[in-house]
Structure formats: structure tokens, C-alpha cells
């Protein structure tokens, strides 16, 4: 049925109006509950307004009401895909504030687990990113490998997702006897899997054409927005806290830092893809050099850092994970602030999003690698 003639003529005289469309909070590509207001001109996005906070639980207020040790399980829930790294960043901040020494073996254990976690985190990113773009095979591949890492973590900590495995001053228990052989077997099995991903994703011409040139982020904007992690490196800035502000024992390991050039979605993909291979190198070196000895340092029975404050940062799989802790000398932090990498990285979306099609927004958002547990805290 044709509409009345008057309406048709009116419609033709008018210019195309821009309209707002909600993407989320329950959109599959947001990997959680994130709402994006898209201003659309036809199919093209002209503005992006992110609304966050759906998972907000005032993590920082909870932290102020807990003792330093009680906070560790809460940090697991920040970036729940890289819990080991949140534990790492938090205990490191408290150790730096108190000036604690961590035994050699515990440092190696920390690095080995942290780098396995980086692989697991990048795997889940790669899988879901492929899923966003309609590549279901890579999703199955990545989850298959991640499962094996979770098995390793389960054998170490008893948990598969929220490990709470790092302690202030060291590690709570040693690796189980089977861990070294299991871990080596996993690495040997994992290394030939990387070319499989290349066959399915990297060398796939459809995928390449789909993501190259999307969501470009230049170096100046990246620094202006304090972007960190793989996103910053994709823009061509060789900046990795493991190398540039070494913590723990990262200065003893030999690994490369991949950088991109254009800062588009493709570069972010490649940086993460190569980082997985680099993390494998670090784990191998760690396993070779793992010394015997104590795993817990000399830690006072009650954790009471001296009065003062500290900003401590680590390179989590998603970027610079910072903890700003103010101590008043008591058992609980006076102020406990988390600088979540994806909170900051997501804030650049209104800059890199506009000018693309709605379907490409999914790819751009996916390439930021957000975890809403950390964005909303």
C-alpha cells in the first residue's frame, strides 16, 4: 500500500534527519553491559556517546572498608578475564608502599602465571573479536586453548576464574609437582596453534579487508587520551611498562614488543596476536630459570603500611593498570583508587568511532578489548 501523496512529497523535500540509536546495554558486541548512543546519518555513525556504570559497585568504597589482605579477592572481579594480573598489580602496590621484598621463586611464579594469564586474556579477546565479525571457528579454537590454561590455573590455585592467588609478600603455595611438566606440555602444544589462527584470521583476506583502516588512532591523540597497552602500541608507540618501567623481575626476560603503524583495528589485532607468542617466550624462560627456595617473604602478621601514598602501575593485558593507595597507618587503606586501563581506553571511542558504519562500530569497540567489570568498578 502506498502512503498518502502528501506524506511522500514532504518526505522528499526534507533532508535526511539524523537519529539516535541505542546500542546496548544488552548488545552482544558490548561484552557486558555498556550502552552506546549512536547518532546516525543513514548507516553512518556521526557521534558516539558511551554510557557506563551498569556494573558499578563502588569497588573503591568497598576497599576502604576492608583490610589490605581482604581486598585481594575483590581485585579478581575487576578485570575478570585477567584476575592474576589484577592480583599482581594490587599486591605489588602494597609491597612497594611497605617496602617488602619478595623471594626469588615467588617472583618467577608471579611472572609465569601472569604471562599465562596474558595469553588466556588475549585468546578470549581474539575469540570474541572473531565472533563479533562472524568468524565462529576462531572462537572455538581460542576457547579450546584457553581451557587448557584454566586447567593449569586450577591445578595451581584451585580456581578457574577468580584466583586470589597472589599474597602481599609472596605466594600462598608452591606449584603442584605436575605443574612444570604440564605447563611445558601446554606450551609445546600451544605454539603450533598460533599458525592455525593465522590461517583462520590473519591470512584471511576477507578479515583483512574488513578491519584495515578502521578506527584509526594517531599517536598524538593516543597520548592525549593516555591510551595504554596494545592499543597504544598499535599506534606505533613502543611503550610497554614491562620494559619501560620494569617491575618484579621483568628486566631479566628477553622478549620483543610488537608495535603497529597505522593504529587501526588491524594493528591492534596484530599486536595482540604477536604478544601471545612473546608471552610464550617469557613463560619458557621463566620455567627454565625457576629457582628453588622460599615463596613467602618476611611479612608482618598485620599488614599496616606506613603513612603515605603510592601510585603503582603494571602492564596488564589491557594496558596500564594502576593502583593509587593512600595509607593512614591503619589496617585498612584510607583511599584506594584503581586506574583501570579499559576505562581510559574506552574514553577515546567518541573520537575514533564517528565516520564509520554501524557494523564497523562493532569491530572498533571489539578492538578496544573492554571488560566492563573493570570499566565500571
Amino acid at each position, binding site marked *: 500500500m502506498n502512503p498518502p501523496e502528501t506524506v511522500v512529497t514532504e518526505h522528499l523535500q526534507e533532508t535526511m534527519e539524523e537519529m539516535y540509536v541505542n546500542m546496548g546495554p544488552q548488545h552482544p558486541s558490548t561484552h557486558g553491559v555498556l550502552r552506546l548512543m549512536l547518532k546516525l546519518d543513514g548507516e553512518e555513525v556521526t557521534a558516539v556517546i558511551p554510557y*557506563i*556504570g551498569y556494573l558499578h559497585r563502588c569497588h573503591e568504597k568497598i576497599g576502604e572498608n*576492608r583490610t589490605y589482605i581482604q581486598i585481594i579477592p575483590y581485585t579478581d572481579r575487576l578485570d575478570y578475564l585477567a584476575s592474576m594480573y589484577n592480583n599482581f598489580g594490587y599486591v605489588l602496590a602494597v609491597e612497594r608502599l611497605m617496602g617488602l621484598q619478595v623471594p626469588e621463586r615467588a617472583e618467577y611464579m608471579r611472572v609465569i602465571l601472569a604471562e599465562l594469564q596474558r595469553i588466556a586474556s588475549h585468546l578470549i579477546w581474539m575469540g570474541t573479536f572473531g565472533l563479533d565479525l562472524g568468524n565462529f571457528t576462531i572462537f572455538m579454537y581460542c576457547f579450546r586453548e584457553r581451557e587448557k590454561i584454566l586447567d593449569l590455573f586450577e591445578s595451581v590455585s584451585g580456581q578457574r576464574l577468580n584466583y586470589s592467588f597472589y599474597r602481599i609478600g609472596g605466594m600462598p603455595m608452591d606449584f603442584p609437582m605436575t605443574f612444570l611438566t604440564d605447563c611445558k606440555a601446554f606450551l609445546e602444544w600451544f605454539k603450533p596453534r598460533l599458525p592455525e589462527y593465522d590461517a583462520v584470521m590473519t591470512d584471511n583476506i576477507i578479515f583483512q579487508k574488513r578491519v584495515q583502516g578502521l578506527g584509526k588512532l594517531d599517536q598524538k591523540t593516543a597520548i592525549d587520551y593516555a591510551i595504554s597497552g596494545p592499543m597504544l602500541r598499535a599506534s606505533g608507540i613502543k611503550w610497554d611498562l614491562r620494559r619501560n618501567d620494569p617491575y618484579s623481575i621483568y628486566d631479566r626476560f628477553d622478549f620483543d614488543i610488537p608495535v603497529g603503524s597505522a593504529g587501526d583495528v588491524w594493528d591492534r589485532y596484530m599486536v595482540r596476536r604477536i604478544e601471545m607468542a612473546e608471552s610464550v617466550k617469557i613463560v619458557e624462560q621463566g620455567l627454565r630459570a625457576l629457582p628453588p627456595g622460599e615463596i613467602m617473604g618476611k611479612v608482618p602478621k598485620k599488614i599496616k603500611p606506613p603513612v603515605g601514598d603510592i601510585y603503582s602501575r603494571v602492564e596488564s593485558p589491557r594496558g596500564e593498570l594502576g593502583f*593509587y593507595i593512600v595509607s593512614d597507618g591503619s589496617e585498612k587503606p584510607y583511599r584506594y583508587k584503581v586506574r583501570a586501563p579499559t576505562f581510559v581506553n574506552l574514553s577515546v571511542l567518541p573520537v575514533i568511532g564517528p565516520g564509520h558504519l554501524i557494523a564497523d562500530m562493532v569491530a572498533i569497540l571489539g578492538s578496544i578489548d573492554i571488560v566492563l567489570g573493570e570499566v565500571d*568498578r
Partner: protein
Amino acid sequence: MTPEEVIQAIGSQFGEAVKASEVKGVEARMDIDRGKGYEILAGLKGMGFDYLNCLSSVDRIASGELEAVYNLSSLREATKVLVRVRVPREDPVIRSVVSLWSTADWHEREAYDLMGIHFDGHPDLRRILTSEDWVGHPLRKDYQDERLVPYEPA
């Protein structure tokens, strides 16, 4: 630029506005006056500290003040800077630094939302983590909410 040089350069330029300063490792730490806060931060940016790592807020309830903490660094050298600005609780207004570092946008919105510091000149100062109709600023030490269950050790 070493942390000592940073403190000296800022101190000689702004004098009285730097209330206290110390060097801790590679970090230069300064307590500065609100009146010259923006100028000092702009001066630090001019020195090459173009990366605003973090902007935190602290409730100094004992002295009746709120504090904003800026963590600055550069991607070229190791020196870091920590700047603290204190404002009275009755008049918690600080000039926004979004024009210096765009990343401050969401950080300032967060500090406004949770701590109630107003950033003068912010382009879009709305609540970010809590809902729009939320009452109060949860991270303040005197925040009261009947839904908040006090923690009692068993």
C-alpha cells in the same frame, strides 16, 4: 629532566603556590595551591609531561578538605610527577584540565560523581558511574545511605 629539576623549575616560576615538595625515587611530589593549580599543571605539560596517568580524589575529612591527585609522566623519560591540590569541602571547585589532557574528561567526571569535586570549565560534567538521579557522593567519608550495610567483623 630529573625530579629535582622539575621541582626547582616549578618552584622558581610559581614560588609561593608550591606549598610543599619532595622527591621520592624518580617521582617529584608537590602540594600546590588551588589558585595557580591550572597554570602549574600547564607548565608541567609544557615540560614534556604529556601523559596524565591518573587523576584521583581523596577526602581529607580531618582538615575539612577534598584533594585531587594528578599522576603525570612522559613516554620519553622515567621521571614522574605527583601533584596534589586541596580544596575546602564547602567550596570544592578546581579548574578543569581537560584542555590540557583529554583523558581528564572521564577522570574528572568520576571524581565529580564519587567525590563531589566540581571541575570548573569541564565540557560535560555529568555523573558517570552512578545513575543520573543519584543523591550524594559515595566516596566521601561522611556519605550516608540507609542501604549501606556497615561491616562488622565476625
